[in-house]
């Protein structure tokens, strides 16, 4: 009877699994020790690309649509690497990395802001790696002891629906978003979004805890709609569902490219204002990951001119590698006054940022 056979297969499956796993783990550790032994000699010029193969597990805080094209370009170059992607929020994946410390699953971690990598680096979640060409990155975009590497920058901007709001009317400061005249007309990302978290962490540092709390409370009182992510925000502003959106700069360009009537404000540029809040995406090699060689090759690729160009072209981001051109039409950051942020300090106070969001009840 096929039913009985199915049952026996099901009953045997966990046994078989239990039987193979220790062996597989042994192999993994063996491979890891080999890798470490190999790392000392890795600088030798003959380390061939053909050795880069196998499964590469990537945890990405960048949403799938923003990382998949880059992964495709990488696998075109390294066809022997099979990439398994888990995309989620930075904190969800950081939680997983901490949880899995004794039993690491991921090889590479990518975030959309620097605070998470900074705090994970302090908890020895990563192993040091300085990718080829990383010495050209601007100062402050490679972690202490080379535990992480910056990839791109993005700016926090206000986008508006230009059929509903004229350029003159559009708010010039993020603090104007608390103005009652925009009540119910603003969309933003909620407390699970890494870029929003980072913006709050920066604000805490620049204007202080009390003022940041006041701003968040005013935003909530002003009936700002908080979405899970920015794609919803840009689409809603593009469709005219909301007049204003608080987003990363490239969401404006992505929505504009879809033909929507939208405008952009790089806020807080006047004398006495806080300046434009920017942040950076970063990548790191996970300590104890099964495939360090492929992880390193992947990060090399992200930092290379080829990888940086993909970020700039496909997603309108600001590449960190000098001499990689911005996509046409993107306003360069050089022209703006930037908010002054100490990443290391903000990272230390990241927990306080979460407590603040919890206290004000940010959705």
């Amino acid at each position, binding site marked *: 009877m096929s*039913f009985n056979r*199915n*049952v026996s297969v*099901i*009953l045997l*499956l*966990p046994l078989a*699994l*239990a039987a193979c*796993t*220790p062996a597989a*783990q042994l192999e993994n550790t063996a491979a890891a020790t080999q890798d470490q032994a190999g790392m000392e000699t890795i600088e030798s010029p003959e380390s061939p690309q053909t050795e880069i193969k196998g499964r590469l*597990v*990537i*945890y990405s805080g960048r*949403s*799938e*649509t923003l990382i*998949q094209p880059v992964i495709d370009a990488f696998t075109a170059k390294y066809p022997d690497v*099979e*990439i*398994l*992607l*888990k*995309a*989620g*929020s930075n*904190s*969800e994946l*950081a*939680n997983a990395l*901490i*949880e*899995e410390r*004794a*039993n690491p*699953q*991921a090889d590479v971690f990518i975030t959309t802001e620097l605070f998470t990598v900074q705090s994970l680096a302090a908890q020895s979640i990563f192993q040091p790696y300085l990718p080829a060409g990383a010495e050209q990155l601007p100062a402050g975009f490679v972690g202490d002891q080379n535990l992480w590497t910056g990839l791109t920058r993005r700016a926090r901007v206000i986008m508006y629906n230009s059929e509903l709001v004229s350029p003159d009317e559009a708010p010039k400061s993020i603090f104007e978003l608390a103005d009652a005249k925009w009540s119910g007309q603003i969309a933003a990302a*909620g*407390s*699970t979004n890494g870029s929003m978290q980072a913006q709050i962490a920066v604000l805490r540092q620049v204007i202080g805890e009390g003022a940041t709390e006041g701003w968040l409370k005013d935003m909530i009182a002003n009936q700002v*709609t908080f*979405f*899970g*992510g920015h*794609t*919803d925000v840009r*689409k*809603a502003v593009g*469709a*005219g*569902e909301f007049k204003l959106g608080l987003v990363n700069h490239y969401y404006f360009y992505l929505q504009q490219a879809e033909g929507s009537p939208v405008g952009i404000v790089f806020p807080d540029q006047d004398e006495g204002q806080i300046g434009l809040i920017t942040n950076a995406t970063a990548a790191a090699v996970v300590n104890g990951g099964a495939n360090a060689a492929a992880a390193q090759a992947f990060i090399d690729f992200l930092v290379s001119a080829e990888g940086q160009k993909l970020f700039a072209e496909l997603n309108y981001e600001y590449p960190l590698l000098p001499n990689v051109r911005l996509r046409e039409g993107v306003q360069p950051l050089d022209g703006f006054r930037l908010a002054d942020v100490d990443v290391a300090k903000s990272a230390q106070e990241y*927990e306080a940022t*979460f407590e603040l969001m*919890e*206290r004000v*009840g940010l*959705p």
Partner: protein
Amino acid sequence: MQLTQITRLTLPRWNAARTSPRLIMAAGLVALFVAVPLVYIFIRAVAAEPEAWQRLLQTRLWKLLGNTLILALAVTSGALATGVSMAWLTERTDLPGRGIFRWMLALPLAIPAYIGGIVHLSLLRPRGGFIPQALEAIFGQPVILPSPIGFWGAAFILTLFTYPYVYLLSSAAFRRLHASLEEAARTLGRTAWQTLWQVTLPALRPGLMAGALLVALDILAEYGTVALLRYETFSSAIFIQLSGRYDRSAASILSGVLVSLAIFILWAELRLQGRARFTQVESNWRPAPPVSLGKWRLPALSLVLFVISASLLVPMAVLVIWSANSLLDPQALRAVFRTGTIGFGSFIWNSVWTSSLAAAAAVAFSLPVALLSVRHPGRISRFISRLCQVGYAIPGVVIALSLVLLVNRLLPFLYATPFVVVIAYVLRHMPQAVRSSESAFGQLSPSLEEAARNLGRTSVQTFFQVTLPLITPGLLAGGALVFLTSLKELPATLLLRPAGFDTLAVRVWIWAVDGFYMQAAPAALFLVLAAALPLSFLLRREQIFR
């Protein structure tokens, strides 16, 4: 009670006395497996720091409690009203087309509420939606329509996709009800309308209330729809805590409160279930004659058509149109037909094998529990059987939270494998398997087994040679139910899946949340069709449809 007494009377004493210790042990192990995540969550909740409790009590706990209870109440009432009225119209009146409507009213069970929500949201979203934009184009100015976002939207959409539970229960009950009851009422001078309210509905009440409480449990566990429509309940708040915060104590506290609430509802449901068994079919049963609708025919017909359109026809039509569009759009087409771990084939395969394995495992685990509770009724067996039904009361997000923490500590080799997802399905959907298996055993007369024993078979031989073949159809029904609900499961899969492991449900959700409706549509359509297969098997088996 009545049923247990009958079983006791017909059962020879020696059998009742000799409950095999092996059977008790097997059933006990299953109960233990089911109870561990629950106990663990309670421990975590109680052991959380007092400051975390205080912070939640001061801020969000009461609001969440209010939000969750009001939504559960609204949807349960909505589902009761819709389900009972649809059942009455299609079973007890001369409504034209009722034969086909019976099917169409049950089929929304194959559509996960979040997929229905995605469709309705994209149609009705204020200003951005298809209908508001079309109206604006026609009239030249914005037309204000009810918004699907928030409480009313969530209540409306969840009602649309949960009423079939009540509908199925009540149409079965309407059909079983003896004609003489209503005839007596009519001879005593009651109108048809009075008879319905004073005689028919009260007679059906226990079964209907049990169905309604199952709907309420479903609402407590619902994640996708409320997240989509931005109405915050316990489930969505826990999901946010899990995916957006480092601190797990708040998630544990919220889970502890939610599960306590759900256990209370489940307890009420179990009590009603016991009473519902009094409705028995008598031997001289005959169907009651249908009520003539008269001038109410047209309004009744439009009401049924509205329910069917909103819950089945419109979502399906939109999914088909979107799927067709995505086949025409090269970018979406490429995304849909990729190969490897992110290809369409792998989503289907992952959905099917995890749900099948969960169904097989849940049915296998339910056997000792059902055998014990039906053949050896008593305090222990009843306790074990009830314990195995707590899955109803543990929402997917809570199962995910406890499994993430438990598996990595106790079974690290299972961590980050799809088997954790399967375990979550088994835990969550075990009650359906236990109930189906119990009813399968209950319908089998113990005299058959006794005959086999008298002819010299051992208890194990008897089980495999006599009992199992006879109850297999009932077990398959339980398996189909577990398969169907596992296929639709979203939050636990989202939180527990390993890297590169996507199911149809996960894919639909990720794409739709990012706003790529066209891309999500083929997966959604496939998911609904895959769920419709076991559903139609179940519907046929229940002989609801002639």
